[in-house]
Each structure stands twice: as structure tokens, then as C-alpha cells.
């Protein structure tokens, strides 16, 4: 047994580029850098929030973890075993999916309209070898766990339920394989605020009860703050900042995070409009130029930002940020002075 706790999920330099095709003459009209060398890890029992604007690669990351799309490069380790890698150190995709499940944003589209609630939940256990009777009994248990009376809901169809009820079904379906990790991809974003709060509390209860680990993906910073232990901020397929929730919200290090936070509706009037809000949409992720991807919208951008890619640098306390302003000796006017190195001879 190693003394340092091994991460339950470890993502190393995960990359996915989508080639754009336009017709038969011009193959490759560009490449969408959806996820570009993303690395992070998740400890057992914690919730990692992932935030960013639409198109920043949050959902692609989730789908890469589930192997719903094949990564171009990088490894994903679950309990130290590489998903989709051969040998004893590897883990088959099928086994990985058993331990890691996902809840999608669109509660209606993610349920088969032709199956009853019970059949939808029982599907995965049956695929993994449970008898139909056992699977249905598990489905009913799960319905009760997510707060829906089995005798009233088991035989119904998705279109007869409300959005909140359907999302509870989706959570039950994700739990049907008794996974260790649940990826919640904008799972509450489409719900009304009052319903959202109920579902969030249900998720917190289930986490404690079942000892789950969450990857909580959302564009809503309030919700992420409420749910997460640590937060990862993504911008155009790259990690901008990652760290404990207090550090991200309290000691914000990346201009992008600051901009996001300032745009966030706040109950506290004192917190409003400290920063200029973000203007316009994020630039196209097709063939991004070298350097920091945020520099086109960054109020502090300088020449150095266009010359070099920023790398994640430690800010202390598990807080990392990818910004030239925080990197000692980067050449940015706001960067701290380089640590004096002994002069040559």
C-alpha cells in the first residue's frame, strides 16, 4: 500500500481534434481543437466541478472519459489502470463503463421514448448479466432512492413525466451499474431553479449514501460552487485554472476566471462589476493560433501571450493556473520577477 492516496481517476494529456471536411476536393478545411492536452485527477469521494462557456470542451472531455468518442492521444487511468489499454495494467472500455456512468443534459432525449422507466433503468444491468427479474427489482430500488415511488412510476413512459422527474430517472439509470464515478454533464442546467435545487440536494444525498465521486460539468458558477470540492476552468479545449473551490472563487488567478465570476449573477451587491465582463463569443476553436487562447479577449494580453503557450503553474495549495502573468520570468509586465539564478561563472 502506497502512503500517498492514489487518484481514483487520472487524466493525462487527453486530446481530441475534429477534422472538418468540406467536400471531396478540400480534405481538412480545418481542425477543431476540442480538447487539447488536458490533464487532471480526481480523488475518490470528491466532486470536481468543470466550468467554461459552451464550446470549451467540457462535454467532449466527458465523452472522452466514457469513451463515447475515441481520444487522439492521452491516457485515462481508473484506479491506476489505463482505460482501453491492453494487459493487466489496462482496463477494458466495457469494465470502465461499469465503474463510470454519465447523466446527460437533455432529460428527454436521454431516455428512450419507447421504453418504460423501469426498462430504461434495467437495461444496463441486463447488459451486464443480471437476469431481467433482478434488474427490474434493482430498478425499483433505485426509483425509490431517487425519490420516485416505484409503483407509480415504473410502468410509465418518459413523455408522461416532468423534466425534474425525468432527470431523477436518468440519475437512477446512471446508478444502476453501481458505478464509482458519475459524470454529470450539465445535468441540472435545463431544469427550473426550484427543481434544480431539489435535484442538486438529491445528488449530494446520494453521494454520501453511496460513496460516489462526481465530475460535475456546468456553465453555472453558483451551482458548481455549491456542489464541488475542486473546480477546473476550461477555455477552448485547454485547462485555464484548477484548484480547490475556495481558491478558485476566492483567490482567482486567471483573467478568464475573473471575467466569468464578474459576469456571474451575485446576491451580494459589493461583488458586482469588479471586472469588465467578457465581450462577445469565444473565438472559433478551429485552428487556434499559437499562444494563450484567451488573449483575444483578455484585457491584460501582451506580446508574450501570443508567442508561447502558457503552462499550468502551481500557485500553492493545489491551485494551478495557466497564465503568463503568474509565471515568473515569462516576460509579461505583470509577471513576478524570475528567481535569481546563479550567474554563469
Amino acid at each position, binding site marked *: 500500500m502506497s502512503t500517498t492516496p492514489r487518484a481514483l481517476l487520472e487524466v493525462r494529456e487527453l486530446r481530441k481534434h475534429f477534422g472538418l471536411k468540406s467536400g471531396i476536393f478540400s480534405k481538412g478545411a480545418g481542425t477543431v481543437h476540442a480538447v487539447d492536452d488536458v490533464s487532471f485527477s480526481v480523488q475518490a469521494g470528491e466532486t470536481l466541478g468543470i466550468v467554461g462557456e459552451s464550446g470549451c470542451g467540457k462535454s467532449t472531455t466527458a*465523452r472522452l472519459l*466514457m469513451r*463515447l468518442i475515441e481520444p487522439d492521444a492521452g491516457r485515462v487511468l481508473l484506479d491506476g489502470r489505463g482505460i482501453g489499454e491492453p494487459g493487466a495494467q489496462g482496463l477494458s*472500455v*466495457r469494465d470502465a*463503463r*461499469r465503474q463510470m*456512468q*454519465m447523466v*446527460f*443534459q*437533455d432529460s428527454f*432525449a*436521454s*431516455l*428512450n*421514448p*419507447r*421504453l*418504460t422507466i423501469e426498462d*430504461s433503468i434495467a*437495461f*444496463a444491468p441486463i*447488459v*451486464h448479466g443480471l437476469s431481467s427479474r433482478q434488474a427490474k427489482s434493482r430498478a425499483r430500488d433505485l426509483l425509490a432512492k431517487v425519490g420516485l415511488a416505484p409503483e407509480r412510476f415504473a410502468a*410509465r*413512459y418518459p*413523455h*408522461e413525466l416532468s423534466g425534474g422527474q425525468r432527470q431523477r430517472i*436518468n440519475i437512477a*439509470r446512471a446508478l*444502476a*451499474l453501481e458505478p464509482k464515478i458519475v459524470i454529470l454533464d450539465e445535468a441540472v442546467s435545463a431544469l427550473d431553479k426550484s427543481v434544480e435545487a431539489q435535484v442538486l440536494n438529491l445528488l449530494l444525498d446520494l453521494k454520501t449514501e453511496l460513496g460516489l465521486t462526481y465530475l460535475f460539468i456546468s456553465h453555472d458558477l453558483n451551482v458548481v460552487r455549491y456542489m464541488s470540492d475542486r473546480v477546473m476552468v476550461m477555455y477552448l479545449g485547454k485547462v485555464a485554472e484548477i484548484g480547490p473551490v475556495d481558491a478558485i472563487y476566492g483567490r482567482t488567478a486567471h483573467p478568464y476566471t475573473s471575467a466569468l465570476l464578474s459576469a456571474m449573477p451575485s446576491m451580494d451587491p459589493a461583488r458586482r462589476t469588479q471586472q469588465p465582463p467578457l465581450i462577445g463569443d469565444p473565438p472559433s476553436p478551429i485552428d487556434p493560433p499559437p499562444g494563450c487562447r484567451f488573449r483575444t479577449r483578455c484585457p491584460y494580453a501582451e506580446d508574450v501571450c501570443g508567442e508561447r503557450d502558457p503552462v499550468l503553474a502551481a500557485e500553492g495549495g493545489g491551485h494551478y493556473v495557466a497564465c503568463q502573468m503568474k509565471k515568473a520570468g515569462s516576460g509579461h509586465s505583470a509577471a513576478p520577477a524570475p528567481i535569481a539564478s546563479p550567474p554563469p561563472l
Partner: protein
Amino acid sequence: MNQTAPSAEVVAAATARGYWSTVLARLSRDKLTVTCALILLGVLLMAICAPLLAPYDPFKGSILKRLLPIGSPGYFLGTDELGRDMLSRLIFGARLSLVMGIAPVLNALVIGATLGVIAGFLGGRINTLIMRTIDVFYAFPSVLLAVAISGALGAGIFNAMVALTIVFIPPIARVTESVTTQVRGLDFVEAARASGANNFTLIRVHVLGNVLGPVFIYATSLISVSMILASGLSFLGLGTKPPEPEWGLMLNTLRTAIYLNPGVAALPGAMIFMVSICFNLMSDGLRAAMDVTQ
């Protein structure tokens, strides 16, 4: 009609009985569709019970009773050019006409839907291979393709049905492919894939149930065309051969009689028309009833 919110009754029915009962409940309120369905059921029963219903032997004629007009005593719908009872021939004709009209669509449904689901679900090169092959058949107008294939194969019921099957595979495959591609992209298929199911299970449980409905409706709309084309091939002499009773062929052999007994000569075509229009209207009704948006 589809835009109106479902009544409380419909919702209650759905809660109690599920999707297909809802469809049936809706259909039963659509008078036109019900009428068409009843007419078609009548024609089907007529075809099945032909020996019991027909007053005369459809093959046996009499030279003395050739081309009697409609309403002749003993011959309610008159007689044909060989003195055979028209009513009996029309009743027996329903058998071959229905089989030749419906069987090709069913065959094409099986083959075309399989191809379409494979192409749509697997995508990539397999999709390209299947769909580009199918495009070739779109280069021929359907009548020309049917005539060309059955003409090359030679006259006969079986060959005509083979030709019609080939005519209907491409459109069915194309519709299936496009519906499957849509369904494949839906979250519930992703979710099911994420639960570790293999392609076969995914298709069986999650794709087919959502694809076959629309494809089936589309196929029912083709039956009308198929009836007309099948009888058309017989009319050209490429389908059934005399003395078999079949509406298209009867139309052909009676063509010479239009100067002598126009009423009788037009009868078989009226049958084709009736069945074809009923299939068309029923297909429209089914489409409306199965369109459960929500």
C-alpha cells in the same frame, strides 16, 4: 390537427396503456382512416374467401355470353371477352393483385430497412458503400426500372415481384438510413452505449423501436404505388399471364372491348384505384396518429 394539445382523455389513455394503445385510440377517432381500413379489410376478406363468395368459376367462360353488360341477369357485373363472370374474376383477382402489390413492399421493407439501419448506425465507409450503391438506382425513374428489370428477367409473377422489390429497396433504405442516423445521435443511444451494450443490443433495444415506426409508415405509403406498378406490369404483359384473374391483366385483355362494353372494361381499374387510394389515405392517417410529439 397535430398541433392541438392532446386532450385529457388522450393523456389518460397514454398513462394507462402506453404508446400503441394511444395510437389505436387516435386512429379510431379518424373516420376517414377507419373507413379506408374497413374497405381494405373487406377486400382482404374477399380475397381470402374468394371461392366461397364468387358465384361462378373465374376461369370458365361461355362463347355465348361474351361481354354481357353490367346488370345482366345472373351476371351482376357482366362478363368479359371470353364470357367469364366479371364479379367472380374481380373477387379472385383481389388475391394476385394484393399479393403482387404488397409482397414487394414487405420484401423491400425487410431488405431496405436492414441496409438502412446498418448504414445509418455504423456510418463511415459502410454507410458510403451502401448509400452510394443505392444512389445508382435513383438514376432510374421507378416505372422505367421496374419495366427494365422485369422485362430483362422475362414475364411472370415472380419476376415482376423481384423487379418491384428492387424498385422499393432504395427509397426504404434511404428513409431508414436518415431516421437511424438521427436516432443514433440521440442521448439515450449514447447513454445506452455508455452502459457497455454492444452494437447488436443497441440496435435491437434502442434503435429499432424508434426507427421502424416511421419506416413502416413510409412503407405503407409505397403500397399504393406498388399496387399501381404491379398491375401496370401485368397490364403490359410482364406480370401475371392469362387466364389468371388479376386486375391489371384483366384491364389489358379487356382493352379491346372498350368499344363494345366500356363499363365492364373499366371495372378492374376501378378496383385498383379504390385499393390504392385506401392505402394512401390509411398511410396518411397512420402517420398522423403515430406522430406523438411529446
